[in-house]
C-alpha cells in the first residue's frame, strides 16, 4: 500500500509563497487535488514527484523522502502537464524507451501492455509530434504506466481532451483506484473532480482549504449565499417584491452600476422566484448575472468558512 505523506510542507519562490504549511496524506484510491489556477497544485505535484524540494517540511512515500531519491520512481508514475515528449519518436519508441529506462525485464511486452491500456495501438507507429493533445495525453499516460506503478500522479490530465477521451481516461483512473493504486490528479474544474474522485483535497492560494469526501465539501459549497447582479425596468419595485420572499437575504441598490446586487440563500428557490415576481409585477428583466459563480469565489468561500 503506497501512501504519500505531506507533512507541514511550505514552498516559496523568492518572496512568493506557493504552498503554505500544507499537511495531507494521499492513500490508495482516486484523490482529486482541486484548486483554482495558481493555487499551488502543480507545486505540490512537483514536490510529490521529486522535482522540487520543499522549503520546509517533508514529502515522503511510505515514510521515505522523495526528493533526490531516484529509487522512488520504481513506485511512481508521473504524467506531467507539459506536452513535450521527444516529438521525433513514435509513441511505440517513446513508451518502449520509458520501459527500458525503468530497467524492466521485458520492455517490449510492458510497452505493448501500456499502449493497449490507453488504446493507442492504432497510432503507435506515428511520431508523437503529429498527435492531438488528447492523444499525447494518452501516450504520456502509457509512459507513466509502463512499469505498473503503485502511485500515479497526474498534473491536469484532462486539459485539451475531448469529452470521449475524458470519459475514457476517467474510466481508466477509476479502475486503477479500484485496484488499490494511489492515484492523484489535479484539476481546476469542479465537474471533473466531481465525476472521478470521492476524496478530494482543496488548495487555495497555497493553503490547504478542505480535505475529505467530495459530496460533503460540495454541499458546503452549494450552501454559500449566491450573489446576482440584476437590471430591470423598475429596480426598486423589483427589490421590494423580492425581499418579501425567504430565499432572498439581502438586496443592495448599486447606484454606479445602476443595478441591484441580490444575495440569495436558496439557489433553486431564487431562480424560480425572480422570473415569477418580475412577470407578476410587469417588470422587464434586462440583466441577470451571477456575481460570484467563478470557481475562485467558490474556493474563497470555502476558505472563509
Amino acid at each position, binding site marked *: 500500500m503506497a501512501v504519500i505523506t505531506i507533512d507541514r510542507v511550505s514552498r516559496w*519562490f523568492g518572496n512568493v509563497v506557493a504552498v503554505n504549511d500544507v499537511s495531507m496524506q494521499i492513500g490508495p484510491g482516486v484523490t482529486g487535488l482541486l484548486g483554482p489556477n495558481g493555487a499551488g497544485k502543480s*507545486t505540490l505535484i512537483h514536490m510529490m514527484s521529486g522535482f522540487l524540494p520543499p522549503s520546509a517540511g517533508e514529502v515522503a512515500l511510505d515514510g521515505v523522502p522523495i526528493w533526490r531519491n531516484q529509487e522512488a520512481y520504481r513506485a511512481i508514475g508521473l504524467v506531467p502537464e*507539459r506536452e513535450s515528449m521527444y516529438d521525433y519518436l513514435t509513441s511505440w519508441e517513446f513508451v518502449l524507451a520509458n520501459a527500458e529506462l525503468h530497467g524492466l525485464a521485458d520492455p517490449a511486452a510492458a510497452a505493448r501492455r501500456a499502449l493497449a491500456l490507453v488504446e493507442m495501438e492504432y497510432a503507435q507507429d506515428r511520431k508523437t509530434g503529429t498527435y492531438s493533445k488528447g492523444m499525447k495525453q494518452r501516450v504520456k499516460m502509457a509512459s507513466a504506466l509502463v512499469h505498473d506503478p503503485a502511485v500515479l500522479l497526474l498534473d491536469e490530465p484532462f486539459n485539451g481532451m475531448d469529452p470521449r477521451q475524458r470519459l475514457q481516461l476517467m474510466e481508466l483512473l477509476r479502475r486503477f483506484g479500484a485496484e488499490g493504486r494511489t492515484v492523484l490528479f489535479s484539476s481546476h474544474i469542479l465537474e471533473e473532480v466531481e465525476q472521478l474522485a470521492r476524496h478530494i483535497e482543496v488548495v487555495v492560494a497555497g493553503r490547504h482549504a478542505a480535505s475529505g469526501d467530495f459530496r460533503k465539501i460540495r454541499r458546503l459549497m452549494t450552501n454559500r449565499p449566491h450573489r446576482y447582479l440584476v437590471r430591470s425596468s423598475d429596480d426598486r419595485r423589483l427589490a421590494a417584491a423580492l425581499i418579501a420572499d425567504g430565499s432572498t437575504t439581502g438586496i443592495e441598490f448599486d447606484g454606479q452600476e445602476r443595478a441591484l446586487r441580490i444575495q440569495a440563500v436558496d439557489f433553486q428557490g431564487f431562480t424560480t422566484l425572480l422570473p415569477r415576481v418580475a412577470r407578476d409585477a410587469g417588470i422587464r428583466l434586462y440583466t441577470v448575472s451571477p456575481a460570484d459563480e467563478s470557481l475562485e469565489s467558490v474556493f474563497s468561500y470555502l476558505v472563509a468558512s
Partner: protein
Amino acid sequence: MNVTVARLTARGLLGRRRGILLLVVPALLLLVAVIARLTADTPEDLAATVVGRLGLGTLLPILSLVVGTGVIATEIEDGSIVYLLSKPLPRHSIVTTKLAVAVFATWLLSALPILVAGLLLCGTRDGVAVAYTVGALVSGAAYSALFLLLGVVTKHAVVAGLGYALVWESLVGNFVPGARTLSVQQWGLAVAKPLAVEGAIAADVALEVAAPMLALVAVAATVLAAVRLGGLTLAGEE
C-alpha cells in the same frame, strides 16, 4: 552508460534540423582547405591559419557548443527531461552517457574534418595534421563537458558558451596573454605542439599545465553536471 539514453540523445541531436546544421561547420572547414590547397603555392604554410585558427580555434568550440548544449539543454528547456529523470537511473549515468554522445559527435564532426583538412594542406609532413587532430580530440572532449555543464546550470547556455569561446578565448586571449592560461583551445594546442616538428605549432601554455587542466575541467564539469541534474527542479510553471 545507458544505451537507451544514448539512443534518445543521438536521435535528438542528429535526427533533426540541427543535424544538418552541424554538417555545415565541417563542410565549411573542408571547403576552405580545398580552396587553400588549390590556390596557394605552399599550402602547408596555411595550415596554422586554416586548421589551427579556423578549425581548432573557431569551428571546434562553436560545434562543441551546439553539440554540448544540444544533448541536454533542449530537453531541460522543453521539459522532456522529466521522462529521463523520473526513472530509477543514477544521475551520473545520464550525464556521462550524454557526454559520451556529445564527445563522439564532436570528434566525428570536427576532429575528423580537422584531420582531413590537415592532410589536404600538408599531407603527413612534420606530423602537423595528426598533431592538430589530437589537439582537437582532447579540447573537443573538454569543451563538450564544459558546455554540457552550462546546459544544465543555465538557461542561457549558448550565450554563456559563446561568451567563453569567442569573447574570453579569442578576444580577451588576444590582448591579455594571461587569459590564455585558462583557454581550452590553448590547452589543446599545448597537447598538439610536441606531436609535430619543433616550431610547426605554437602554444602559449606548457604541456605540464595544459594536460592536468584538461583532465580537471572535463572531470569537474561532469561531476558538477551530475550533481546539478540530480537537483533539477520544475518550478515556476504555474
